[in-house]
């Protein structure tokens, strides 16, 4: 009742002085209109919730096929044993090594993609001149457009033999690529900051500090590089190979998202900081990056999820050996991941629907889905918390 009154009131307001009676809605018409509004709302709600529903449905159907596995075999073996012999008689479904493999490969990919990605984003948004940036960014984004099977083919046919023949050199180069810029950055930023503590702030002190910090860091980098140079790799299809390729694949995600975050910090903050006399490194490390932290965090998590979910490359080039490397961080051993196991074991052979072997794949999919779900929640939480802090 009150609704009806308010609608007439607002109509009156709209139509102003003109004949009021003609526009007053009959009871029936207003009911129709409300019905239409309700229908419209419902339709829009349905459309927006369809993607949410899709997620729920995927969860539901995967869980429905995963639960029989736990009923048949229980949780203990799946989560704590190493032996993965799904076709053996009797079968073993210990997936611990596969979880470790997934984790290891993802960790490796993050080690590659996060420093490179975040630093290139900083470089793109704050260091490079505009024209260069316009050239470099599309090139990085092309990395995202290459099909994963092409990456896998490269990893298997080009990179794996290279690792076997020139493993030490590749490792050393990778190490220098990763460590040298980081060390240089660390030296400059640290010396800059430490120099700022001295009152006179002259160039001599800065150079001294840079040298003092730089020498041990550079020596350390070089010594590790020499150690890596001496390593012989038996099999090129290993976690290192895949980590590097996955890192490369996650790179465009990390770069784009964190660059957007850095850009959205805004000119005013930067100009204000410069106006207060901050150096560029101070502006970047003390103002811009903290302000963009939540976005960078989201970028990192997105990149990691890209690496966890990737299938083709790991199936082709990780070796697929369901073992925990010794020691666990040894990336030069072949490993097996969840995605590769699902992709490789799904399919043709004598799969009987209802067998543990069939359902174990769904159990793995459920674990994978849960991991990415939790990752998403965490990133959401991080973004929200830092947004609160910034306010």
């Amino acid at each position, binding site marked *: 009742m009150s609704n009806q009154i308010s609608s007439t009131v607002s109509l009156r307001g709209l139509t102003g002085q003109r004949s009021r009676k003609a526009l007053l809605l009959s009871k029936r018409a207003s009911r129709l209109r409300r019905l239409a509004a309700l229908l419209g709302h419902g339709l829009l709600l349905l459309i927006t919730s369809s993607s949410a529903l899709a997620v729920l449905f995927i969860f539901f159907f995967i869980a429905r096929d995963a639960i029989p596995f736990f009923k048949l075999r229980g949780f203990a073996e799946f989560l704590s044993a*190493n*032996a*993965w*012999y*799904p*076709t*053996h*008689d009797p079968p*073993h479904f210990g997936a611990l*090594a596969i979880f470790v493999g997934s984790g290891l490969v993802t960790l490796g990919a993050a080690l590659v993609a996060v420093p490179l990605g975040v630093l290139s984003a900083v470089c793109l948004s704050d260091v490079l001149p505009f024209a260069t940036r316009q050239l470099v960014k599309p090139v990085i984004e092309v990395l995202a457009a290459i099909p994963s099977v092409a990456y896998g083919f490269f990893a*298997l*046919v080009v990179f*794996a*033999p290279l690792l*076997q023949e020139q493993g030490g050199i590749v490792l050393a180069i990778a190490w220098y690529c990763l460590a040298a810029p980081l060390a240089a950055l660390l030296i400059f930023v640290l010396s800059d900051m430490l120099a700022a503590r001295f009152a006179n702030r002259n160039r001599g002190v800065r150079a001294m500090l840079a040298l003092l910090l730089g020498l041990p860091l550079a020596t350390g980098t070089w010594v590790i590089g020499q150690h890596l140079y001496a390593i012989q790799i*038996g*099999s*090129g*299809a290993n976690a290192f190979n895949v980590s590097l390729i996955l890192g490369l694949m996650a790179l465009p995600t990390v770069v784009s998202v964190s660059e957007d975050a850095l850009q959205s910090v805004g000119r005013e903050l930067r100009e204000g900081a410069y106006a207060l006399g901050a150096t560029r490194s101070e502006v970047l490390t003390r103002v811009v990056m903290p302000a963009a932290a939540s976005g960078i965090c989201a970028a990192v998590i997105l990149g990691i999820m890209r690496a966890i979910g990737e299938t083709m490359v790991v*199936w*082709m080039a990780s*070796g*697929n*050996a*369901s*073992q925990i490397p010794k020691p666990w961080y040894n990336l030069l*051993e*072949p490993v*097996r991941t969840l995605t590769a196991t699902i992709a*490789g*074991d*799904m*399919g*043709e*052979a*004598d*799969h*009987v629907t209802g067998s543990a072997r069939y359902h174990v794949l769904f159990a793995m999919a459920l674990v994978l889905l849960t991991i990415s779900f939790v990752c998403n929640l965490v990133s959401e939480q991080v973004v929200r918390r830092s947004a609160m802090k910034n306010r």
Partner: protein
Amino acid sequence: MRQVLGTAMVAAALLLAGVSANPARANEDRIVVDGSTTVGPIAKAFAEYLMANRPGVNIPVSESGSGNGAKSLINGVCDVADMSRFMKDSEFKAATEKGVMPVAHVVAMDGIAIVLHPSNPVTDLTVEQVRDIYTGKIKNWKDVGGPNMRIVMISRDTNSGTYETFEKLVMSKQEIDSSAEYVGSNGQARARVQSTPAAIAYVGLGFVDRTVKALRINGVEPTRATVASGVYPIARPLFMFTNGYPKLGTPLHAFVTLHLTPKGQEIIDAIGFVPVTCYPPTTSLVEDREQSDK
């Protein structure tokens, strides 16, 4: 996916033919084939050949595994069951109870070659040694007369027919060590061996070429002659099962006897299996193939 497709095809075939199994088949021009993924390629090539040469004949082939093939034959859903193993007792019993009399046709021999990198000096292993390598008991090539290199074992994925054969003929119920690498195809296994000096892998005979070295097993070189005669130890027959012996002269009869004709043997050879026939003792698999290519 394939399995779903397979069942869908069988279902569609049933609908189209409108028959359940009975020995006196309603439509002789339609042969439904189901079963092993290993034998599937042979059946497909045979079907293609027959359909091209006998107008009106229609042969849908699906690959849902040996077990499902047997099940289909027993339930009368298919006319030919491709199987990479012989029928089990339980399957025979179920078949006879339903009035189906399975008859086996050995269409080809399937052999598995153990391949190494050409630079590896090892040329001869026993089945036991291969098994010990794959169980992780032998970890270094120097233990079997090779250089001091850690062995890189490469296995096919657990879904493949090649894996199944290897597991049955070589591993004899023992588990492959967890450090073995798994690859998705015979070609990929060969590619890994080509590029890895310390690698050992097993592939179908059709995938042996000059870029890898096929081992002698128990002193026997894998050739068509040794596989067909059963001297080479890692070999098995491939079957097609029918319900009773097919009526002579029907398309079904032609289908299950095609492997006896020169054309059928050519097809089998091209797919990489060994036709069952008499061979002169030849020098090696590769030379053998190169000869027939000429």
